[in-house]
């Protein structure tokens, strides 16, 4: 009993990171999302599931800034989220996530070069070497250490998605958006990718949103599953009503608690250290 209460207390302190307030998304007559209200804490791993065309990907595009909501607002740390994609939100798509004209190493180093060089878009000399070294570290972590010089076309689908994840994480975004990232992979590779993603999630303070068609994937990976569905349907006008979040289920609480505990760790260790010095 005491264990459960302690877990719950650990869950509590997270502050609202993303707030979705009464968001609607309409294209002409067609309502895709309606009255969407949601609060997401930092470090949540949200999986988004639902039938095709029910607005999961639309919601992801709103979070990404690729589209702006027709009504309502999305707040990130109490400030409206930027209306165009930027470095605070990383993204991995199902396809076309990596640049075909760059080698594996340069694909990742690009994320370090672009923010630092607004005119050339590339670093030279020492800066370039440093960026490549950093890129190499993360590529080794995702298991691409032996294919640094290859072009994406020479990699398998799973390898390409590993590269895409490494590329998205190199800029240290606060939010990672995944749009069916493993949809085109075979089951074995997919399982490896799940492990990789969970490891990376546990190591960083990332908030993840992942659209998936695979229910099992949604349930095993997420700490929170959001089911999108239409609550009202007019058979004469299928586009008249939009989808909402019909189920919002917390999952894998143990994993969430473990991660929250890890987050606490360095802080308490630091305090301990100071206390020692004081004494």
């Amino acid at each position, binding site marked *: 009993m005491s264990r459960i209460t302690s877990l719950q207390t650990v869950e509590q302190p997270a502050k609202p990171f993303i707030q979705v307030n009464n968001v609607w998304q309409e294209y002409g007559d067609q309502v895709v999302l309606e009255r969407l209200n949601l609060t997401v804490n930092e470090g949540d791993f949200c999986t988004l599931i639902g039938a095709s065309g029910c607005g999961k990907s639309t919601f992801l595009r709103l979070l990404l800034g690729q589209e702006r909501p027709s009504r309502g607002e999305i707040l990130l740390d109490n400030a409206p989220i930027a209306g*165009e994609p*930027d470095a605070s939100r990383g993204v991995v798509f199902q396809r076309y996530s*990596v640049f075909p004209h760059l080698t594996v190493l340069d694909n990742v180093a690009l994320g370090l070069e672009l923010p630092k060089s607004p005119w050339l*878009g*590339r670093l030279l000399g020492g800066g370039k070497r440093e960026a490549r070294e950093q890129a190499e570290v993360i590529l080794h972590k995702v298991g691409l250490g032996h294919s640094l010089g290859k072009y994406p*076309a020479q990699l398998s689908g799973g390898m390409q998605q590993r590269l895409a994840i490494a590329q998205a994480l*190199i800029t240290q975004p606060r939010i990672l958006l995944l749009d069916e990232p493993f949809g085109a992979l075979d089951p074995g590779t997919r399982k490896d990718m799940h492990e990789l993603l969970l490891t990376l999630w546990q190591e960083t303070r990332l908030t993840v949103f992942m659209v998936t068609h695979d229910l099992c994937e949604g349930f095993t990976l997420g700490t929170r599953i959001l089911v999108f569905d239409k609550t009202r349907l007019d058979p004469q006008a299928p586009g008249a009503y939009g989808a909402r979040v019909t189920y919002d289920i917390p999952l894998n609480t143990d994993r969430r608690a473990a991660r929250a505990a890890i987050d606490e760790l360095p802080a308490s260790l630091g305090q301990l250290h100071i206390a020692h010095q004081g004494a």
Partner: protein
Amino acid sequence: MRLINRVPGRTGWSLLVILPFAILLFAYLTSSVQRLELNTNDKLLPSFTQMSSAVERLAFTPDKRSGEYLFWQDTAASLKRLGIGLGIAAVAGLCLGIAAGTLPLFSAPLSPLLTVLSMVPPLAILPILFIVFGLGELSKVMLIVIGVTPVLARDLEQRAREIPPELLIKAQTLGANTWTLILRVVLPQLLPRLLIALRLVLGSAWLFLIAAEAIASTDGLGYRIFLVRRYLAMDVILPYVAWITLLAWSMDFGLRKLTRLAFPWYAGAKA
């Protein structure tokens, strides 16, 4: 076995490649011999000896009047015009294509304009070019530029639109601004397409060059062909045509090799 499933072997393939050329050559030689038998002064289908002596006269003996080797002088003049024209057209086409294909604010005024401009027959405005730019080098280069740029720009605009939007968004999430996005993502992906587009417009570029040289020039491969036409000098015209074909073919070949060498990722990314 169905025809669609029949693939020749390696030697068979080479033989089939040579076959049409051999047939053409044989047909020419036999007709030439027949005509020369009837009339030794026949000018229409000169023999290879007549052609080689014409080449010898133009390419390896200095001209009596100017002391120049006319063949090489013509070649240099033509290649210079073609090179400058294609170079300017490539840069202009690339800039216009990228602007129209990536930036919606530029696409709105540029795309329809380019479509209309590419429909203007360049040879029809050749007189205008002569009036505006004079009869010098500039008007010939401008004809190539005007004829080729809209085609290149429209092709590259289309290719720029074909870049998956996911990649453009991805670059933004990696911290790119519009300029660096174009510089690091759009431009490198379009360069191999530019080389391919150049190969395709090579034929029209030569057409414009020869047309301009035929009308107003004092040297150049096109000028020479149209000059000796008055004397029915097929022994000069035919080697010149063959030489132009060879030049055009080697440019095409060079561009193809360059695409493969400079952009090794390109062949794989297409698949």
